[in-house]
């Protein structure tokens, strides 16, 4: 069989079968196509403005390293006029970040970008090692997850930067969509699908330029560009819903390679169908370009426990739901005498009020997002999770000092 030629340039040999759509490309064309698609995402979602200072959340891993490399390339090629900075977080776990921080330091030289490493001690007054010393090994995942979620924002704020980009890819987003469907959390689902998160009042906005890039293509890009990244197995096992969603996506991808993006597309469309979410956030009606949406960042990604219990979340939720069902069964008995439904089909269009509205609003009501009174980070409570945890820790420290 004659070697297949690249589908784009038709001259070089095709060496790469794109995971996204199985088209066969040569190395040069693959790299170009990958970059062009990220450029498309950036322009169609209007992620940046000229002269903007942007911090790249850099962990030394493949996603953020590819992000830094692609942004540098595109910034020069298309004259975005961005002022790019690498921002790394040091959790303060002895030995844990050594290798990855070394990688980021080399990246800073390779890409000629300034690097700022911010430690948990600077951000919170506590390193993770100190947290573990205080509260013990058990439960420290909660702290790490919550602190990690805010660290980039707080770090950017320290640098006076208002925009942080992260390396979340299409697989991460698809995983989050399925995970929130399994959890029945439509409010979170609708927030997690938008490419830009953080509302206008929040000081730091976040975006995911690799939102439509396949994880496998990110690995290929890093490989063929010979990027210097730190590959490590994640030390956390994902919580049950995420793990379950992840294995499901792997199977779906084998059946239909586009499935990952199809899930992302569904997630974006469903976000518009969630009651209470404004239909004006629709990214398509009458506009050729999608305005950047704003919402809470909800992608935990690998290693983030999002402050939840690390146990089997599915089992916990199943039990909780069963108790609710039993409770509701009693309520229905009481309400039996009142008619649940009135009127015929005559004037009813489209929505038969078959399921009672009261029940509908209970679940999808969603939390109203505001800002933490103490640190300003987005929060549905007066005081955000991190500040609440810090309160506890500081109280502890005070006691120890006494």
């Amino acid at each position, binding site marked *: 069989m004659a070697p*297949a030629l690249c*589908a784009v340039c*038709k001259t070089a040999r095709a060496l790469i079968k*794109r995971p*996204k*759509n199985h*088209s066969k490309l040569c190395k040069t064309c693959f790299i170009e*196509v990958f970059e*062009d*698609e990220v450029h*498309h*995402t950036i322009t*169609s979602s209007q992620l940046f403005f000229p002269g903007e200072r942007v911090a790249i959340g850099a962990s030394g891993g493949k996603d953020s390293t590819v992000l830094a490399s692609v942004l540098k390339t595109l910034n020069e090629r298309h004259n975005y006029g961005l002022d790019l900075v690498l921002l790394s977080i040091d959790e303060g776990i002895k030995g844990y970040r050594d290798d990855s921080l070394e990688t980021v330091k080399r990246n800073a030289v390779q890409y000629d970008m300034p690097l700022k490493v911010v430690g948990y001690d600077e951000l919170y007054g506590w390193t993770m090692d100190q947290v573990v010393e205080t509260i013990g090994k058990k439960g420290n995942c909660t702290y790490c997850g919550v602190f990690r979620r805010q660290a980039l924002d707080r770090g950017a704020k320290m640098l006076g930067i208002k925009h942080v980009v992260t390396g979340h890819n299409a697989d991460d987003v698809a995983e989050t969509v*399925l995970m929130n*469907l*399994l*959890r*029945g*959390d*439509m409010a979170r689902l609708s927030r997690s699908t938008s490419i830009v998160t953080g509302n206008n009042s929040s000081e730091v906005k976040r975006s995911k330029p690799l939102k439509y890039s396949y994880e496998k293509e990110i690995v290929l890009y890093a490989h063929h560009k010979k990027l210097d990244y730190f590959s490590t197995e994640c030390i956390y096992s994902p919580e049950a819903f995420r793990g379950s969603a992840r294995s*499901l996506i792997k*199977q*779906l991808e084998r*059946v*239909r390679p*586009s*499935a990952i*993006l*199809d*899930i992302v*597309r*569904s*997630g974006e*469309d*469903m976000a518009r*169908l969630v*009651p209470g979410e404004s239909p004006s956030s629709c990214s*398509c*009606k009458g*506009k*050729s*370009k999608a305005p950047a949406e704003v919402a809470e960042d909800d992608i935990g990604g690998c290693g983030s426990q999002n402050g939840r219990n690390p146990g089997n979340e*599915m*089992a916990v*939720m*199943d039990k909780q*739901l*069963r108790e609710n*069902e039993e409770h509701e069964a009693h309520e229905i008995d009481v309400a039996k005498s009142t008619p649940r*439904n009135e009127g*015929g*089909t005559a004037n*009813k*269009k*489209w*929505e*038969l009020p*078959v*399921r009672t509205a009261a029940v509908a609003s209970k*679940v999808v009501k969603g939390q109203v997002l505001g800002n933490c009174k103490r640190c300003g980070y987005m929060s549905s409570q007066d005081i955000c999770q991190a500040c609440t945890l810090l309160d506890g820790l500081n109280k502890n420290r005070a006691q120890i000092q006494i």
Partner: protein
Amino acid sequence: MASSNPAGSLLKPCVKCRAQEATLDSRSQAVCRDCFTKFIAAKCIKQIGLLAKETPTPHYGQPRRFVVGLSLGPCSAALVHLLNENVDFQLARSRPAPFTITAVYVDPHPARKAEDDILEGYRQRYPRFTFKRDDDDGKLDAMLNSLPSAASRSDIVRLLTRHILLAEAVSHDAQALLLGHSTTALAELTLAETAKGRGFSLPWVMRDGVVDVVVSRPPSSSLTSSPSPNQPALLPPPKETKTKKMLIYHPLRDALRKELITYLSLVDNPPPLLTTHIHHTADNDKADKKVVSHKDLSIDEVMIRYFADVEKEYPSVVANVARTTGKLVRLLSGDSSSSQKLCGLCGAPLDESGDERWRGELGIQIQEEDHGEGEDGSGSGNKKGGVCYGCERSVRG
């Protein structure tokens, strides 16, 4: 404690009636056979009661007309059985039959004996109901053979089955189309439609409610057999279409698939089942989970396998998925005279500018420059053919 127990000698009394031995586990409660079947029947009767309020009798004293979608699998079998029980119950009290039932089996394949035998079994078991097979003269079969993959065929069969059932309901002048989806099936449907890029049409698929049915043409004519296996030809939707409204209802939406299977195993003289459906149950697990090449699997099958596991361990999680997505709102007014373009295949509203932007994310611009060997080798073909994002994916593979 056992003083009020009429049979104090019971090893494990049923938690509901306390009068019989508990032999089954129903949502973590030990119950007896009778209480279990009553529990399932009650779930169905509750929904039928709600449906009755939505559908006034056509003329005083006349029964309502319903069409039931029959898959020859356990869930629709349970639905037919429960509906029949309901009629029995009414007749036994000298009341008129509350409804008539025409159950339709949509068969994408040319007539096969196994299916015919089962339908005959249904006719004998439920003589008050009408059973019908709609194989669309084999047109469907020819069209399906032109599709590129098992996943693609499965997607299109699902869509067209729905179309055909709706058309049958309209042609029978039925007041509602009843579908036998269990809680589990609705959860599968939610994730499957999401994985197919059809999130936008979920409210139309998941919820009970009225949908538009195009009646001016047979549904299968929207696809014709195509010259190339990679490019099934799609006809644009006809300029003038007449639409009718049809109410879709899911009376078994509150019962898990495993519960319906247990139910069928407990009733006297249950309806016959098509054996190919049986491997979808959680009960006989490992044996039939033989490794199948993913090339031969469909998205729907991946979901069925996945939820068989989840249903076993976390039944309430399954129920919650179905319940939550059932609450998504239908965004469009549904005014069929509006300028809103609809997908020529599934009838979902089209989002052309969104699709345009998405072609960039999918890397399709690049493919259009190559008219060569790209497997997707798409190009202009059906790009403007008026199909939605999800249908475009389904037709391509």
